[in-house]
């Protein structure tokens, strides 16, 4: 009896989540853009003359895709996680829970809204970066695919963290002790080939590494891992988190008593 898809319900929740972050664009789009630009200016200037990661690619150019994906990772996670925990803390999540909106519709709305923010932030970083750096676009399809997969993956992780966390402090812990270190240690600022052997091996267990490497391959046509492997691991991680997120929602974990 509950088959079908409440398309308008899904779209309304999705549109609400997009409007929510658009109401505070200084915080949700402009700030990440400025942060990425500062990284580019500081690290690019400091290391430009000393580091050449790929033949014929300047360090600043190498840095830009990494900064774009790092911005995607951090902002998409923040988008869904902060919205859900805020709704839980203020109690207004009840309006969605009372409505005929399924777990799938709920999950898809939050994840897709996070994807929209991720793409907007990435585009903003790109638009500013190309004022300073010549950036090739070797495989635009890969850039788009990895940007969407990265946004959706971290949007899904944000849904899970938002459901799990009981207070902002726990969410901050998740962000600072999990998301931030994994994104910094995933090859944003360097090629993992520059790392000692054991750290290279460890990096291969970091799913963010594959998101960044595949995304960077889209710009330069070269990366640390094969694009097929990056795509497979990234999709696998997305499916895993989607499964976990939907499972928690279906069980009503921490949101339906």
């Amino acid at each position, binding site marked *: *009896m*509950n088959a079908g898809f*409440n*398309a*308008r*319900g899904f*779209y*309304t*929740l999705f*549109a*609400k989540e997009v*409007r*929510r972050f658009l*109401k505070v664009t200084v915080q949700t789009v402009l700030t990440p853009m400025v942060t990425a630009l500062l990284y580019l200016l500081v690290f690019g200037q400091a290391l430009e003359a000393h580091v050449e990661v790929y033949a014929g690619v300047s360090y600043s150019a190498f840095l830009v895709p990494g900064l774009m994906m790092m911005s995607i990772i951090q902002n998409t996670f923040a988008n869904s996680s902060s919205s859900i925990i805020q*709704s839980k803390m*203020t*109690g*207004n999540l*009840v*309006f*969605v*829970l*009372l*409505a*005929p*909106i*399924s777990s799938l519709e709920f999950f898809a709305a939050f994840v897709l809204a996070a994807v929209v923010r991720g793409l907007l932030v990435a585009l903003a970083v790109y638009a500013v970066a190309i004022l300073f750096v010549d950036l090739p676009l070797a495989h635009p399809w890969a850039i788009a695919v990895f940007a969407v997969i990265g946004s959706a993956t971290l949007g899904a992780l944000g849904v899970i963290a938002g459901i799990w966390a009981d207070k902002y402090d726990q969410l901050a812990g998740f962000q600072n002790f999990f998301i931030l270190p994994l994104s910094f240690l995933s090859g944003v600022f360097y090629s993992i080939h520059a790392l000692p052997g054991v750290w290279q091996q460890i990096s291969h267990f970091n799913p963010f590494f594959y998101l960044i490497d595949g995304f960077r391959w889209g710009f330069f046509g070269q990366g640390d891992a094969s694009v097929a492997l990056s795509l497979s691991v990234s999709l696998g991680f997305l499916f895993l988190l989607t499964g976990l997120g939907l499972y928690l929602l279906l069980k*009503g974990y921490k949101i*339906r*008593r």
Partner: protein
Amino acid sequence: MTSAISIQQVHKRFASLQALKGISMEVPQGSFFGLLGPNGAGKSTLISIMAGLARADAGAIRVMGHDVVSAWRQSRHALGVVPQELVYDPFFSVREVLRLQSGYFGRGRENDAWIEELLETLSLSDKADANLQDLSGGMKRRVLIAQALVHRPEVVVLDEPTAGVDVELRQSLWRFARRLHREGHTILLTTHYLEEAESLCDEIAILNHGELVTRDSKQNLLARYPWRTLHISVDRSTFQLPEALVSLLTSADDNCLTFRLHREQDTIGEVLAALQSAGLTVVDLSTEEVGLEEVFLRLTGQSGEGA
């Protein structure tokens, strides 16, 4: 006719607390139904299960014939819940939250006319574009009611709607609830104000410690306790009470006497006559009918005299 709400053997446990112990009852369509009980009785848990905010460990609830688990979309369409807490989304205006809520229920711009009508009816029109966080508590309460009605549900649950609101708003909410009832909605009201339930409801259920203590019409409940209280002041404080009145006397304080009279067996005239024959002059007299409050206190064991 299908019950508006049908509750069958509902059990719910939270850790070591058995919140609901096999509740079963029917809420008839078109009734103004009062769900009463002391704090912790299980009222909110029952409403949460009804609305899909909680899941029963056992048993079933149907809203307008739709099971809240197997036919949850239909049951949620049939139910509008006004939450107890003043919750709101600080990002949006009144009109925006009503359009959002309407959209969650699959309704588009064709529902805008109804939204405008709700804004008008609940005196929210001039605040329609104000952000929720800038509204007073009373205004926020009205918005919650509008949100619950935006999808035109057949059954409306008012969970403590007048808790903490001023007298004027309470009266206006009562009028609105009566209007909804007149228009054919089934109303389920939980309240701590028993005079509110007595004034509004035609059917009453009382929960206590997760069990259904009673469920009856208001008239039958009140008739179960056919007592009234008679207060009399006499002209002196030292006297011999007539033998016939001793069993009726519940308290005597100086020259003030309180009697408990059975509506059908005892008459005020007999009491007055007995006092007069003892040489006493009545200087003042008042009576109190048993209200829902006393019934409630007796049934929930909170009365000094016990149930």
